[in-house]
């Protein structure tokens, strides 16, 4: 059997299983094992012999899978996942929101801005958008609703803000992207900073414009929804503001260790992950906020999420091994280049593809399913893989808040008081989606936004 035809058949089988609700990890892993077995069983000019194919299949499956889980650099994944959960249990996230609330109190839509800035701050110490939305959603959404904010603004701002967790380092998606593209995690982390900050600034601007156009969306204290007298906003003294600033030190310290340590070359990303987790535990214990039960819960959730992520990535790694053997992607690239397609058109096609697939698949699934095919294509057209990584992660961020499967929207729905319909949350994120697309266009048209910081660190 022609290896490329075999690859297409196996891919079709995997997609069929995927549609039939078979977990992504099983689809990819099983498709890869069966594909490898068939690949080694069929030799040109000879009869198929499954017994002959079994030994090399088991050898590749065993060494690839064991090498993937018996791995030092990848320990940064559970460490960064753990950091987010420990920071939440140690009330570092709550303090962050409380402090920002004081500083943004006099701005129109101050609580929503504090929520988005809190998401940005929490993104710098956690690698997951969903964790970010979940943590901030539990704190900020009830608070905004209590102050009479419209549910669309309250939920939309946190759902959109939560997506920053994927772009601002440390980001799990960047780590997974690095695994499948052989790129430096450090460069990818640095490349995500400016686009992340640009998105953050854009989200704040969106809230300001929203509240300017519809003041009743974010009424001030004692206003009852009219929202015209901003001067009546709660007033905090200089001492209160300074005290609030003091609450930010754990986040700043963790941020310095992660971003500063990696940028200055003091730590590898794995070391930064371990040191920051150890610091978060120490801060939580010393301040008396991290209880034994909290720590147990954080570790339990971390362990389960780690297992879930790794089993998908392991299946995908096996799938990549199979796809590489069949050489289907170089053949596809050759065909595409033969059509004389313009590189800009190719990238536009890739963007549209990710926008569409982002509506129905989750981020990790999209990454592991598409990268084996996309990376050779993008590389073949001479695009920078670090820049492409930022583009893909931004697209995945958009997918987190687009219907019908906007995972962050579901998370916010779960965190919010009952009675807020899903449609209302999707309506809330619509304004932020417009901004997201503008930032995406900027990242696409000006690659320096992504590549400037990595170029400085080299």
């Amino acid at each position: 059997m022609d290896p490329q035809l075999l690859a297409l058949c196996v891919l079709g089988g995997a997609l069929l299983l995927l549609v039939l609700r078979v977990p992504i990890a099983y689809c990819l892993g099983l498709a890869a094992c069966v594909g490898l077995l068939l690949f080694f069983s069929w030799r040109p000019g000879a009869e198929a012999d499954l017994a002959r194919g079994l030994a090399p299949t088991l050898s590749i499956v065993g060494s690839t899978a064991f090498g993937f889980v018996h791995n030092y650099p990848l320990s940064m994944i559970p460490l960064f996942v753990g950091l987010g959960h420990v920071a939440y249990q140690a009330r570092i996230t709550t303090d962050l929101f409380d402090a920002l609330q004081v500083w943004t109190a006099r701005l129109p839509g101050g609580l929503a801005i504090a929520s988005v800035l809190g998401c940005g701050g929490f993104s710098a110490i956690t690698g997951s958008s969903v964790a970010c939305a979940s943590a901030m959603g539990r704190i900020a959404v009830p608070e905004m609703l209590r102050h009479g904010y419209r549910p669309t603004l309250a939920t939309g701002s946190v759902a959109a803000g939560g997506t920053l967790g994927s772009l601002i380092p440390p980001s799990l998606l960047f780590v997974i992207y690095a695994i499948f593209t052989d790129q430096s995690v450090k460069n990818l982390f640095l490349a995500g900073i400016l686009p992340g900050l640009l998105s953050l600034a854009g989200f704040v601007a969106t809230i300001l414009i929203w509240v300017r156009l519809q003041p009743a969306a974010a009424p001030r204290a004692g206003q009852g929804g009219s929202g015209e007298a901003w001067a009546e906003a709660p007033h905090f003294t200089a001492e209160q503001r300074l005290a609030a600033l003091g609450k930010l030190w754990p986040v700043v310290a963790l941020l310095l260790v992660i971003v500063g340590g990696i940028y200055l070359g003091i730590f590898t990303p794995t070391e930064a992950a371990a040191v920051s987790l150890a610091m978060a535990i120490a801060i939580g214990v010393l301040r008396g906020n991290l209880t034994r039960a909290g720590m147990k819960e954080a570790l339990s959730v971390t362990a389960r999420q780690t297992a879930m992520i790794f089993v998908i990535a392991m299946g995908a790694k096996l799938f990549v091994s199979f796809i590489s053997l069949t050489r289907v992607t170089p053949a596809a690239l050759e065909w595409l280049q033969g059509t004389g397609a313009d590189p800009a058109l190719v990238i536009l096609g890739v963007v549209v593809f990710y926008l569409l697939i982002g509506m129905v698949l989750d981020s990790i699934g999209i990454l592991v399913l598409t990268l084996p095919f996309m990376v050779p294509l993008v590389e073949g057209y001479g695009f920078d893989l670090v820049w492409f990584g930022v583009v893909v992660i931004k697209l995945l961020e958009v997918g987190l808040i687009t219907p019908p499967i906007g995972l962050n929207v579901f998370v916010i729905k779960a965190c919010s008081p009952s009675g807020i319909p899903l449609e209302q949350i999707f309506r809330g994120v619509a304004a932020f989606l417009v901004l997201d697309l503008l930032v995406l266009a900027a990242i696409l048209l000006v690659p320096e936004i992504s590549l400037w910081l990595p170029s400085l660190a080299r």
Partner: protein
Amino acid sequence: MDPIRAAGSPGLDEPGRHTLLERAGVRVAGLALVLLCLIVTLNVVTRALWHAVIPDDILLVSELMLLVILGPLALVTAEREHIAVTVFTARAGAGARRLMACLAHLAGIAFFGFLLVAFWTLLAKSWRTGEYYDGLLGLPQWPGLALATAALAGVILRLVFLLVRDARA
């Protein structure tokens, strides 16, 4: 609340019950993560202060990673927490969903079955030849492989239980 679970679980809605061993796997994974974190952090500190490193730190962390990843796998499977795409079959009836859940368990058994045989082959070889990792501690390879193989066997056993339960539901 676990954010991933908040997004909905694949397969049938009811999570499976888990055993003491499965819960122990999660606890061991949590402890292994703390230990792993301490080893890497201590290594950074000792390197900065005394230009010394913990012997075979990379190897120790890699071995602990086996516990962190594979320890909770049976419980994650029991609770149906593996991520699946549900959008295309959201309106399927109970019978169809039961069939799809059984198909998912069968696919899982086949995938982990491949892995189990592959790991068993590696384990048998390392036991036979007495292979050990290069390093100061001279750690043998078989304990890590044995742990990984046992964890996979546990996952397959759990999947078989789920399959029988869902098939009879």
